[in-house]
């Protein structure tokens, strides 16, 4: 079966003979986009987070064949060493990682999370479901799908708060 995936703006036609290949394995092994990491392969860690049609998902718990025609953004589409995205710069500034294994997933997740917040999506810790506002509690809850084995959580929150704050100033 041929599957067309548009990854970071470039369409790729993949010939997939065995439908068992996950979207994660297709990205890493077929397209050599190894920035997206495999931690648990069971939806429990968030290392494999990518953005599909504007939504963050775990690429380990979905089949490549289920994404015919989809637009996928991976960490390689977010920034490059010479042209880092604001979140990537903030992670460096705030020491938001040690080993770095969870970091691509954290950045992808945070990128989509800021958009969800902009659209007014509530979270478990939102007091009034109608009007969520940015706070450290909200950042922690909304990033809870990304584990960090090095436990850089406080610095990750600092990095995201800085970028979210700047975005809010820019919008105001």
């Amino acid at each position, binding site marked *: 079966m041929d599957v067309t995936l548009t990854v970071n703006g470039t369409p790729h036609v993949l010939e997939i003979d*065995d*439908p068992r290949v996950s979207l994660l394995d297709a990205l890493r092994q077929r397209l050599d986009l190894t920035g997206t990491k495999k931690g648990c392969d069971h939806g429990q860690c968030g290392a494999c987070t990518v953005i599909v049609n504007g939504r963050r998902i*775990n690429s380990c*718990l979905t089949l490549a*064949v289920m994404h015919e025609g989809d637009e996928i953004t991976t960490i390689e589409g977010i920034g490059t060493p010479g042209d880092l995205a604001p979140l990537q710069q903030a992670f460096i500034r705030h020491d938001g990682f040690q080993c770095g294994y969870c970091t691509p997933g954290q950045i992808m997740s945070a990128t989509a999370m800021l958009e969800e917040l902009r659209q007014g999506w509530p979270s*478990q810790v*939102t007091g009034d479901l109608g009007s969520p506002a940015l706070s450290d509690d909200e950042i922690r809850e909304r990033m809870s*799908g990304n584990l960090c084995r090095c436990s850089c959580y406080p610095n990750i929150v600092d990095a995201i708060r800085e970028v979210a704050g700047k975005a809010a100033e820019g919008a105001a």
Partner: protein
Amino acid sequence: MKAFDYARAATPADAIGTDARIIAGGTNLLDLMKLQVETPARLIDINHVGLDGVERDGEGLRIGALVRNSDLAAHPAVRQDWPLLSRAILAGASPQLRNRATTGGNLMQRTRCYYFYDVDAPCNKRVPGSGCGAIGGVNRIHAILGASDHCIATYPGDMAVALSALDAVVEVEGPGGRREIAATDFHRLPGDRPDLDTELQPGEMILSVRLPAPLGGRQIYRKVRDRRSYAFALVSVAAVVTMRAGRMDRVRLAFGNVAHKPWRAPAAERMLTGQAPSPELFARAAEAVLEGARGQGHNDFKIPLLRRTLAAVLAEAVQETE
């Protein structure tokens, strides 16, 4: 993972009455397939059949089976009129998973019993007749209500607990036509057939879930677990309470992760209805919920935990703000 054939359904009819296994978000099925707990020979992908809208249905709401958990929780009407449902969904899984997970798939998610997940262990749910590893084994997350000698697993989900309290209806279609199943009856007790989680018959597909008219009042979903987020409940309580002249007028209670199904508590609801709230009454209501409750050893703590969580939820629910 065992090999399988894959096909895409263009319409619900393509997925109804076949022996292929439905795949929606895939967040539960693929997890279990990787472990060979589930080994379907054929998958039918229903992500492109539609059924992904939320519509007004009289005073209620009709939710398509393919509506993603995150869209449902954020839907303005749900936030406004059925906040219990938003709260329950947002308490479950992670944002990434909720972006994929569907209404139908969430209802059909399977137990998190450790022995069910371990293909080398005995489990009557996975292999009927093989025994139950959890009885006399490690059973901290297991049932205190409605269990059987064959299986003590819990239904692990959150959304369905709210749907049960809200008296939602599940609309399904099979080769013989459409039918409706009350959310309170959708999941089964294990009895001597723990391999059957729900009343859904082979060949049937969930089309939608209907919510009846809003109940108003205070709506609380309290989930107690080992960490604050991204973990299944040990005990959860869904409560809707409306007040009239200082008395509880309408009361709906459902409990999660204490039984093989979301556990409604009609006797406790009746006991509270029409009464003025008091800690003594809440304690008696908890005893009514826990009638027949039995711990399995490691999960004995769930009995006092349910008692205390219910008391706290009711105390919060009867505070009148408006």
